């Protein structure tokens, strides 16, 4: 459990500040790469939502699993994936997290328990349930965390997963990142009832509302409920309110968004809020500045390395399909 009166508490928050800044830098520089035509596919940015993945993963161990969604860059970095390998994946280069097979929506790093971003909404939920079953079966002392968007709480597998997790008392944390939008649709307009917390509580699952733009608040609650899960308390639900600062996807012009809404929400973005708190609590501005500089340098270097890296051989398209039948793939001559 976090003890926010402990003398090392500001140092803990500074660590999270570093992670958030690294994610922000990654998303901004990935956008530059996209605009420069270096990214083969599209990207979904996590800008403004960094505090959630960061604070949740700060309370996880390397042996814990996370399952992510289409907006997964931040989750991956927070769980310890290598940003340079991720940037290489975006550019489809050798050394990418999936060797260039997957791209932005399929970043995974099994070595740090990041079991994959996902292109299909809600599939991370059901697979997360299974991963938790596996931990129980294998008697491993670890937990599973699944990240899910607000819009995705209207898919059936969301309910199946919550119900299942409860009846088998699985070691799983559901984190709903409520950025108020599902693509171009305002989630409120297509969602009945009071929202995700009430939905989780309907299954008897302990559920908590947090300000997802306040890294300290997310950390405090995440720390408490993750400890509960580790102690056999069963599934828990964290509802983090935030805002999607950028468009849904890299090409989104956001014509549906009311004027001024983005700007108003930008005032509440988590990184400057965290910086303000750190400065009030004994961390120097110089330290903040050097943290920012080194995060941006790390990601710039990652992009440079990704640009310099070779493309994989096209024939690798035929690798890793499955064990049997590889003689009959029908390779183009």
């Amino acid at each position: 459990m976090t003890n926010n009166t402990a003398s090392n508490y500001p140092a803990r928050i500074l660590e999270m500040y570093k992670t958030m800044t690294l994610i922000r830098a990654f998303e901004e520089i990935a956008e530059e790469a996209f605009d420069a035509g270096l990214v083969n596919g599209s990207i979904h940015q996590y800008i403004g939502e960094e505090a959630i993945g960061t604070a949740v993963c700060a309370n996880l161990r390397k042996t814990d699993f996370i399952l992510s969604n289409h907006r997964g860059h931040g989750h991956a970095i927070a769980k310890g994936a290598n940003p340079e390998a991720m940037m290489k994946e975006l550019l489809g280069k050798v050394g990418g997290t999936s060797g260039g097979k997957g791209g932005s929506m399929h970043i995974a790093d099994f070595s740090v328990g990041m079991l994959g971003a996902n292109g299909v909404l809600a599939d991370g939920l059901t697979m997360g349930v299974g991963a938790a079953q596996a931990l129980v079966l294998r008697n491993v002392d670890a937990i599973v965390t699944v990240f899910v968007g607000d819009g995705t709480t209207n898919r059936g597998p969301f309910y199946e997963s919550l119900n299942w997790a409860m009846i088998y008392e699985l070691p799983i944390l559901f984190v709903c990142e409520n950025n108020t939008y599902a693509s171009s649709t305002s989630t409120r307009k297509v969602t009945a009832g009071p929202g995700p917390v009430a939905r989780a509580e309907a299954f008897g699952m302990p559920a908590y509302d947090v300000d997802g733009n306040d890294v300290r608040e997310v950390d405090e609650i995440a720390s408490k409920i993750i400890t509960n899960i580790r102690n056999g308390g069963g599934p828990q639900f964290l509802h983090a309110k935030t805002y999607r600062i950028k468009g849904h996807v890299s090409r989104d012009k956001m014509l549906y968004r009311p004027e001024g809404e983005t700007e108003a929400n930008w005032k509440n973005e988590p990184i400057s809020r965290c910086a303000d708190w750190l400065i009030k609590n004994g961390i120097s501005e110089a330290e903040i500045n050097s943290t920012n500089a080194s995060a941006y340098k790390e990601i710039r270097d990652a992009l440079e390395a990704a640009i310099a890296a070779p493309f994989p051989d096209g024939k690798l398209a035929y690798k890793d399909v499955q064990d049997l039948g590889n003689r009959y793939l029908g390779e183009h001559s």
Partner: protein
Amino acid sequence: MSMITMTQAAAVREGLAEEMRRDPLVWALGEDLSTAHGGTSADQYLGLIDEFGDKRIVNTPISENTIMGAAVGAAVAGTRPVADLRMADFGMCAVDELVNQAAKIRYMFGGQARVPLVVRQAIGVRKGGAAQHSQSTEAWYIHTPGLVVVAPATASDAKGLIKSAIRTDDPVVYMEHKDLWLAEGQVSDNPNDLIDIGKASIMRQGSDLTIVSWSKMALLSLQAADQLKSEGISAEIINLRSLWPWDKDTIYKSVSKTGRLLVAQESVQVAGFGAEISADISENLNHSLKTYVRRIGAPRTPVPYSEPMENEYRVTTTRIIKKAKELFSAP
């Protein structure tokens, strides 16, 4: 009546709007249909909410099973829904409602009910779409008794087929190509211009070889025909448009004339629709064939992301040409 230049996405939108004006029981449902974007990818529904209101342009939650299931229920209950599942990849979330319900209801209830619905689900590789946003699953549905399957190649196909699909009394899977949404073409503004389902279009007459294809591959085959012509091969290009039913008459006639058949498809070749066409022609037109039937399609791998691998995966004009020439070199 005149011809107007528009994108395929706009052509479908026009066709849908005309049918909605003609029949008040036609309506559409799906994610993001009524926002300023009107179906996020290519303005497929732009402005329809203003003309038809929110009872007929229904912006749904992210609930694929219910989008599809509701369309089935609404169809048996006397309306004509157009369900948009956006991409064939997400359409998989609702295969049950489509295959176990929509396709079966008329038959298993002894003809008491009809299921006049259209389900839009886009196919095709879109640059960098990778494994879960680039799949072409037409063969799944052609294999399913009870379903009609169409796949337009041109803007004119797109409009005529959506109109005919809406007027069809059985479920129609309407598979547009994501890469063609913004491709422009000439479209008739006459609301009575339909394209008969089951009728192929001969895009180019030829005498030496028949290339049968659909969707984007029909356009690549047309390019291939230009190149082949300069090398002295006259290729007849057939754009199927409708995959089930498919226009056997047109193909039989063409192959009887040319004696050579190549089927070009973008989807995985193994167990794809090209296999059915090839087998059918081999069984029924063997006497007219000068050489055995050839197919070209994607290898049996998921769609890779990185450009060189994606290029390795793709069926290209060059590959179609190369395959076409094989029909003239080997016996």
